[in-house]
């Protein structure tokens, strides 16, 4: 315990620890501000689009009113009928967009969801006698995506959930792995459906989808994973311990555990920072927010079936809990690997690069028994990885067990190296 406290004191009193921690926090805050400005620009774009439509239909209404008066004067019944209908249509559309603009500005999501549901239902579940296909830039939107989008909106309406900031000038589409856009349409689709988390947990969810956790684990290793290498680098700090009545096994485990606990604390802080900054700026977000989970293949040949394949939603709360478990296990693996590399190479920056490369290469080999395949936590939890690899063995529990096993093997190697190699 005393050695653990001493090791902890070394970490705490080292300025580099604090500088790197502050830089990491600032980076997350900086990314949030960029994200927020993008979200605001999307919001502005939607408002401008509404304004444009409001003006357009107002002008339309005026034009048809003039035509209607002209028809009344000339007593042209046919034109009068058309002008009356069109004026009414323009007026109601104008009012609809006025209402939509107001709802959007006031973030009255219920009204928006109700409107979206009407639109999406027509395409997601068209009556058999009236099949309807939805298109985006002349390319078909798959029925799976339409159904998922519809169900998501329905879930949010029923549970009174605040959505992410998204461009809703078309519809509130939820992009899925079943999308099959190509070329410029794909880029446009990605842009149109991109979601920006402004609230605390929404921002965290957005970061998790972008390899945030593995990156933070690597940074954490760089800060806290050098309990051994920093003592054997330029200085001979390790010799300080070697002439004390202290068993090498105890020294190894204390250094290993101190570094890991430091890393774990860092990862937890870095998970807390996006929540804190988002909450301060835009509120906490809703823990019931629906996360799409693919149910997998319905055909025995493992083909994607856009009409029959099913899905379900899990609340964001459950998603974050599963993420936390995977993050803890992943951090153990990457840390143990980093610790092993640091027993051979004393320079932390090289260790981080090497471990980063090994991790990246590891992710390229998709196999249920390859722990690095589980680094994209989002794809594991949503089962996207199962669909991508045509393999349903990729499960959260397999990932946890395999990762723990490899961590244990690395730990044994670390111990052997530490005990039997001259420092």
């Amino acid at each position: 315990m005393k050695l653990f406290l001493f090791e902890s004191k070394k970490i705490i009193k080292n300025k580099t620890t604090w500088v790197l921690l502050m830089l990491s926090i600032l980076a997350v805050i900086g990314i949030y501000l960029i994200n927020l400005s993008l979200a605001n620009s999307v919001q502005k774009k939607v408002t401008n689009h509404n304004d444009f439509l409001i003006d357009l239909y107002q002008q339309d209404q005026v034009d048809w009113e003039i035509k209607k008066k002209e028809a009344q004067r000339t007593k042209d019944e046919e034109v009068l009928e058309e002008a009356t209908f069109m004026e009414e249509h323009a007026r109601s559309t104008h009012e609809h967009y006025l209402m939509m603009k107001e709802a959007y500005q006031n973030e009255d999501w219920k009204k928006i969801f109700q409107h979206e549901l009407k639109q999406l239902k027509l395409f997601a579940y068209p009556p058999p006698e009236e099949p309807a296909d939805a298109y985006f830039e002349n390319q078909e939107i798959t029925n799976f995506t339409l159904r998922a989008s519809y169900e998501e909106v329905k879930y949010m309406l029923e549970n009174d959930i605040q959505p992410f900031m998204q461009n809703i000038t078309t519809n509130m589409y939820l992009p899925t792995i079943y999308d099959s856009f190509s070329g410029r349409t794909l880029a446009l689709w990605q842009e149109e459906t991109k979601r920006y988390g402004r609230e605390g947990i929404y921002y965290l969810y957005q970061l998790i989808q972008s390899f945030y956790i593995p990156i933070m684990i690597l940074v954490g290793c760089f800060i806290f994973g050098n309990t051994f290498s920093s003592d054997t680098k330029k200085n001979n700090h390790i010799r300080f311990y070697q002439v004390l009545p202290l068993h090498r096994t105890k020294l190894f485990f204390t250094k290993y555990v101190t570094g890991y606990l430091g890393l774990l604390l860092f990862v937890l802080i870095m998970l807390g920072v996006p929540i804190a900054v988002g909450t301060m700026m835009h509120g906490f977000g809703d823990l019931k927010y629906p996360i799409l989970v693919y149910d997998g293949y319905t055909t025995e040949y493992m083909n994607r079936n856009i009409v029959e394949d099913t899905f379900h939603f899990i609340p964001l709360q459950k998603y974050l809990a599963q993420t936390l478990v995977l993050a803890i296990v992943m951090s153990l693996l990457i840390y143990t690997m980093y610790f092993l590399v640091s027993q051979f190479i004393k320079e932390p920056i090289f260790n981080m690069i090497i471990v980063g490369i090994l991790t990246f290469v590891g992710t390229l080999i998709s196999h249920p028994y390859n722990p690095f395949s589980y680094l994209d936590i989002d794809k594991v939890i949503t089962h996207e990885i199962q669909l991508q690899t045509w393999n349903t063995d990729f499960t959260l529990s397999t990932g946890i067990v395999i990762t723990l096993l490899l961590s244990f093997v690395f730990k044994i190697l670390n111990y052997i190296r530490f005990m039997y190699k001259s420092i």
Partner: protein
Amino acid sequence: MIKITRLMLRDVLKKYKSHKVIDHVSLKIEDSGIWALVGPNGVGKTTLLNCICNIIPINSGKIELLGESNKNFKVFEKISYLQDNTILFNYLTGYDHLKYVCDSHRLPKRRIQEVVEYVGMENYLHKKVGTYSLGMKQHLLVAISIVNRPKLLFMDEPLNGLDPSSSILMRKILFDLVEQGTTVILSSHNLAEIDRVTNQIIFIKDGKLIEIDRNEYTETRYVFKLSNQVLANKLLLDSGYTIQQEKDAIIVTIGEEDLNDCIQIIQNNGVTILDLQKEVTGSEKLYTKFFGK
């Protein structure tokens, strides 16, 4: 009463590739006292001390400290090794270091205060080691190495970077330790300091150890400044003393036991002694003999 061998090296070999730094060396020290490990840079003094303390492994042979294998970590409850200051953590305070060492030895907190006062580092105990001067770091290393009241103490260049007052303090500490029954083995380049603290010298050359009792080589000389140098010169020569004439002084090579007679001869003939200095030489001469100039 059974006497425990303080240090025993038996046929110890340490080599780097084919270069034998320690070449089948044996050594036995059974008593308290100070032993100086002497040799030029790169000869393997630190390597030997590191091997003895199991910091680096030996290729073959056996090392025992206080009757136990040096591989037993528990021996360090009664043994200390003062290493160079690169082992210190610059971002920790002297207190942090001492506190941890005390905890490792399961010593009470008050022992820190005792050692700190003894070494004289109260003023900077709570400052970060990074701000310490060379001498201050040396004081901390000394404090760390004596905090457990060692029976056997190894010191690697303990006199490096010390100002005169620190050197005096270091000598006092060494003599106190010996008085308390500690065996001290120190490596040093400072031959003059070695002459002041010990006669027991271990030269290290070509991987071998040569143990010398400097008493056999010690030469004591007295430098006299006199009111009548010419007369004194004649008187001493006539009395059979070996003298050396300098510009302002006469150097007489005699043992301590003959000093009184020498002074009597000078004073009985009306010559006044203006100044008298003692010079002890030995290590330097021996060093030159072993390693050349």
